[in-house]
């Protein structure tokens, strides 16, 4: 119980504020190391502080942080609670950052367990604590089973298998050095193999982002010149689906303003300020600045006006968004068209006013983001932060391996980190067993007196 644990303490609702709880000896210093604001190690106990969570120096989320020192906390340990605003995706990201900063993802029921072990909870409650731990761990198992699509776990298993074969080949050299017929594995062999493994892990992380998007909402930007009908379109989308809208006043401009659900897909609408205040994002900030917004979004709805000629800015925008998921929408098709308008095959023609064509947009969004589509496009995803954090730890072990090879360290040292990676991947898929490596060794190599 000397380590510091972290978990998301609130239910994962849509668009609501989430709380991340960190508990343990290093809780305050861990959060402080990724927090921009007051020095949390110096603040009074039971105080709340405003600031930002940093991801490698970059601002990730605007947060409120409660610092509570031992012993007057739930677990009786130093505890920090982080209120995040940015929706589920950002909350998971913050969790991931805290894990990378040194905390460990809590086991199911671990906060309560610590509260008990530290004498915070009454003896009578012990039984219910134990029940809860078992129940929660079953639930967690079920969840992680679901979270890991067959394909992701297969991919991880394949990487593990590759590492296992390599490890067995190294181990057989070590444990049976007199058998010279077995190929001597060198650092160069590891270097070669690790490159491939690194690429595959990178790919898994990349792909897992797509998965997170589906589950936690798609960062959506609706852009267009003033009066092209952006608000009307938004209202229509809302009308259609009777979806939930959550406005969090006072949040920074670059985070989710509201979440709508379209055909089972969550859209986190970014910067609706531009819509509500009928200020034009494109013209006010210029194309260059709007690029920054485009960069951050997963889906761009570009609304054009059927009654007006296409402008230079709009043409530039069409060009800029072509590599992103986007939908080109020509609004006001019920009114006489202007000359010189852009005509694209993929364009959806609507009348936001009359509500025509909205179902086309809905269809298109589903087409771009539906789960079935992702499966068939062979995109894999790992949705839990823990999995991603472990994969990232694997990447940092790969860096250690490269450094060790660079320094020409003996293979058994280099192998230490290779074993780490193998163990971590096993933690993700939960497929470790005791004599796994030895079984591999004896089936792969022929040795013995």
């Amino acid at each position, binding site marked *: 119980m000397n380590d510091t644990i972290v978990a998301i303490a609130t239910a994962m609702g849509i668009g609501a504020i989430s709380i991340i709880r960190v508990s343990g000896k290093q809780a305050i210093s861990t959060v402080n190391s990724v927090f921009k604001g007051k020095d949390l190690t110096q603040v009074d106990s039971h105080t709340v502080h405003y600031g930002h969570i940093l991801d490698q120096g970059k601002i990730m989320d605007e947060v409120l942080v409660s610092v509570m020192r031992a012993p007057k906390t739930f677990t009786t340990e130093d505890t920090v609670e982080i209120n995040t605003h940015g929706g589920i995706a950002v909350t998971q990201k913050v969790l991931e950052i805290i894990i990378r900063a040194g905390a460990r993802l809590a086991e199911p029921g671990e906060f309560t367990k610590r509260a008990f072990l530290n004498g915070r909870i009454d003896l009578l409650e012990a039984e219910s604590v134990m029940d809860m*731990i078992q129940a929660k761990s079953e639930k967690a198992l079920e969840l992680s089973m679901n979270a890991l699509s067959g394909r992701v776990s297969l991919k991880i298993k394949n990487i593990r298998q590759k590492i296992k074969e390599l490890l067995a080949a190294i181990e057989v050299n070590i444990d049976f050095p*007199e058998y010279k017929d077995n190929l001597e594995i060198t650092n160069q062999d590891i270097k070669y193999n690790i490159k491939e493994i690194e690429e595959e892990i990178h790919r898994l992380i990349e792909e897992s982002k797509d998965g997170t998007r589906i589950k936690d909402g798609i960062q959506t930007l609706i852009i267009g010149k003033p009066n092209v009908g952006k608000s009307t379109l938004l209202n229509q989308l809302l009308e259609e689906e009777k979806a939930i809208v959550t406005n969090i006043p006072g949040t920074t401009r670059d985070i989710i303003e509201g979440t709508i659900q379209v055909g089972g897909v969550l859209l986190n609408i970014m910067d609706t300020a531009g819509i509500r205040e009928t200020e034009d994002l494109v013209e006010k900030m210029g194309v260059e600045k709007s690029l920054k917004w485009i960069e951050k979004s997963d889906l761009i709805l570009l609304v054009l006006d059927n009654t007006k000629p296409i402008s230079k800015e709009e043409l530039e925008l069409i060009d800029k968004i072509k590599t992103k998921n986007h939908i080109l929408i020509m609004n006001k098709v019920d009114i006489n068209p202007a000359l010189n308008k852009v005509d694209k095959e993929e364009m959806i023609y609507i009348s936001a006013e009359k509500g025509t064509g909205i179902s086309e947009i809905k269809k298109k969004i589903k087409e771009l983001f539906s789960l079935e589509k992702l499966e068939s496009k062979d995109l894999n995803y790992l949705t839990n932060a823990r999995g991603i954090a472990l994969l990232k730890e694997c990447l940092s072990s790969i860096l250690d391996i490269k450094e060790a090879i660079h320094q020409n360290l003996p293979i*058994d040292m280099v192998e*230490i980190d290779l074993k780490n990676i193998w163990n971590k991947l096993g933690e993700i898929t939960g497929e470790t067993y005791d004599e796994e490596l030895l079984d591999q060794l004896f089936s792969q190599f022929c040795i013995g007196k």
Partner: protein
Amino acid sequence: MKYDIIVVGGGHAGCEACLATSRLGNKTLLLTGNIKNIADMPCNPSIGGSAKGIVVREIDALGGEMGINADKSLLQIKMLNSAKGPAVQSLRAQADKIVYPENMRKTLYKQENLDIKEALVENLWIENNKIKGVILENEEKIEAKSVILTTGTYLKADILIGDTRTRKGPHGERPSNYLSENLEKLGFKIIRLKTGTPQRIDKSTIDFEKAQLEPGDLKYHTFSFDTPPLYKIEDQVPCHLIYTTEETHKIILENLHKSSMYGGLDDIQGVGPRYCPSIEDKVVRFKDKERHQLFLEPESIYYDDIYLQGFSTSMPYDVQEKMVHSLKGLENAKILKYAYAIEYDAVDPTQLKQTLETKIVENLYTAGQINGTSGYEEAACQGLLAGINASLKLQNKEPFILKRNEAYIGVLIDDLVTKGIKDPYRLLTSRAEYRLLLRSDNADFRLREYGYQVGLIDEGRYQKFIQKKEQMNKLLEELKENKITPIKEVNEYLKNIPSTPLKDGISLYDLLKRTEITIEHIKHFFPLNYSEDVFQQVEIYIKYEGYIKKTMKEASKLNDLDNKKIPENFDYDKIHNLASEAKQKLKEIRPTSVGQALRISGVNPADISVLMVYLKKEHIHE
């Protein structure tokens, strides 16, 4: 005559056990079937090997005999994996099969408090689940407070050759026919295991010209931390390497049905070791392999047997003749002893405590092959630990248990009692999670203090160790304090190594961190006067400091869990929230700590959490 402790069996486990108990002041009796076979090496003529060599160093650090005895009996010695890192280096020696047992016998005979008697034990004398002594073949009873069974492969041993099964032990010695049945009646789970040994060939009939020379190292080594080398490098006896041929494989495949293991006998129950398959197994399982390595190892300078390592088989004699003659250099070889397989009874080691005391009978211990292990070194270290713990218990002292991050011995015993075995257990470096900590070079740093506290390391040997420790710290200090600066001579010297020239001043300590810099280079800059051992320790420590610290951090997590004790009579039925598989396993193994509980297969982290909450609850109650 009443003894404090009786040790049954004079093999490698028995020798260490009876020496430890008698040295710790207990009146000890060693019972053996044949005094001539004390410390016998019925299989390969070698001591050590990967991981095993480190165990011999650990035995020595704790005050056991195997290392000292091996040093007196060497034919040749090598440091395995010397081209790899320090964590996986391990000594392996060819030991003379006449000299080794003879030296051990002498040591035993000289030992105070130790009587040796030739007799076969067939039953145990037990009252109220507590050992009272042993019952011999002739019904004679000998009383003792504790008994250590180190019976090796002699329990209901059967020799298997081709289609014949004969009830006898190695060398045709008489096995114990009833002891395992009597153990079974007491509630011990008996498992049947199998192992094998290859042919011995008449040295004068081998054409060594056709074989590849395998000499010993050109550097002196000793297993013991206290003995100087007792051999001469140039006098080492070589081994030789040969390979199986196409013809060998053909003969094996044609005669496969005659092998005991492939249909020659249809009542084989024993499970053989995965790491030492018979030659027929190798040929069948690795069909694509064109050849298999075989070693010609000398057994002794006093007789002509050459041990044909890698060729163990249970083929009938006539097929063995053909197989041997198909080998290059052995076309005209004379087989002095045929290969055979041996089947024997062992007890399920999960019925043991970590002290190797049985859970069923108080003050009864088992050690060595009876616990399902294989190998002289594995046996010896168990004998030593059983001997120490039997003594400690009689003195009402705390048990002596080594942790997984302290010694291979700890790994071995924890594996045995926690996980049990499926095939004969051999120690491998891969079995240790923290092998960077469990090195051959630092066995004394890990264990000598314990040896001293237990009482097996005397003041003289201990002081020698303390001095080494002080010297090491002094050298570390010296390297930290002294710096070199980027003057021309320094950088010229570094360039020649080749190593990167300096830009700023650097301590010798930091310079030694560089992979290409050795202590010899450091001596060029600064005169240092220490023993080779101390230089080696310091160099390893500095070079791998990062990795060592990382491993220690990992190990300390395990230690925390291992330090959370579970009471001996803990009632798992009282915890309703435990998963039923976990409950079953916990009741069977009865782990002594939360850490051990976690290592039981079938017990998952949630069960451990529940267990910890329950333990705390109990604690508050009290």
